[in-house]
């Protein structure tokens, strides 16, 4: 199984290169980076943790679904561990002979990753608070 999760910085070039081929003329890429703000609060840094075994399996399912649904080659990398502002948290790349398929596959993968992959984010704020981010609800301070 390819390693979708990594504790090392993700390098854009090799991820894009991994889906390119002479038959595929269009590549759509999404990069998610650590923002310096969240719901109006200044973020200093964050930590991603994961249920690694399941996250790898779920990433593999998502990539397979995209490759089955569109004629595209798809790559996905998600970083875990401690990240600073501007660090790349996730990269999705999808290459196809048709740019519509490349965009659609790329978009599908990032949306499904956000919904389905068991990864959690703890943000450290400038005001000293530490919060487990819950995209489904209002923020609540961590215990």
């Amino acid at each position, binding site marked *: 199984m390819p390693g979708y999760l990594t504790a090392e910085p993700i390098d854009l070039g090799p991820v894009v290169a991994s889906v390119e081929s002479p038959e595929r003329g269009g590549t759509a890429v999404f990069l*998610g980076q650590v923002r310096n703000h969240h719901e109006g609060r200044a973020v200093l840094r964050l930590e991603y943790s994961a*249920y690694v075994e*399941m996250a790898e399996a*779920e990433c593999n399912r998502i990539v397979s679904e995209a490759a089955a649904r569109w004629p595209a080659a798809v790559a996905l990398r998600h970083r875990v561990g401690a990240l600073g502002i501007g660090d790349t948290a996730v990269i999705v790349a999808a290459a196809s002979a048709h740019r519509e398929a490349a965009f659609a596959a790329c978009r599908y993968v*990032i949306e499904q990753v*956000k919904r389905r992959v*068991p*990864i959690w984010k703890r943000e450290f704020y400038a005001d000293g608070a530490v919060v487990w981010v819950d995209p489904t609800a209002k923020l609540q301070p961590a215990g």
Partner: protein
Amino acid sequence: MPAAAPAAVTVRVLLFASYAETLGTDSLSLTLAAPATVADAVAGVRALPGGHRLPAKPLCARNLAHAALTDFLAEDDQLAMLPPMAGG
């Protein structure tokens, strides 16, 4: 004579992120009367000290795949309780 259905099922429960913090552990063994569902396991965890602070209907995964609360559990299943995910 047919084999009797087992009277109990033991599963490994995994807790992550805020749920692990809430319960003070990230892994525990749980034995339930059979047949048992994911919801039964959640109820079992919530009956532990501090467990009532976990939601009654959390996201769960069984053996590395998302599961419904109504799914049945088998011996040695790995059941994970998943706080709201925030990857991507």
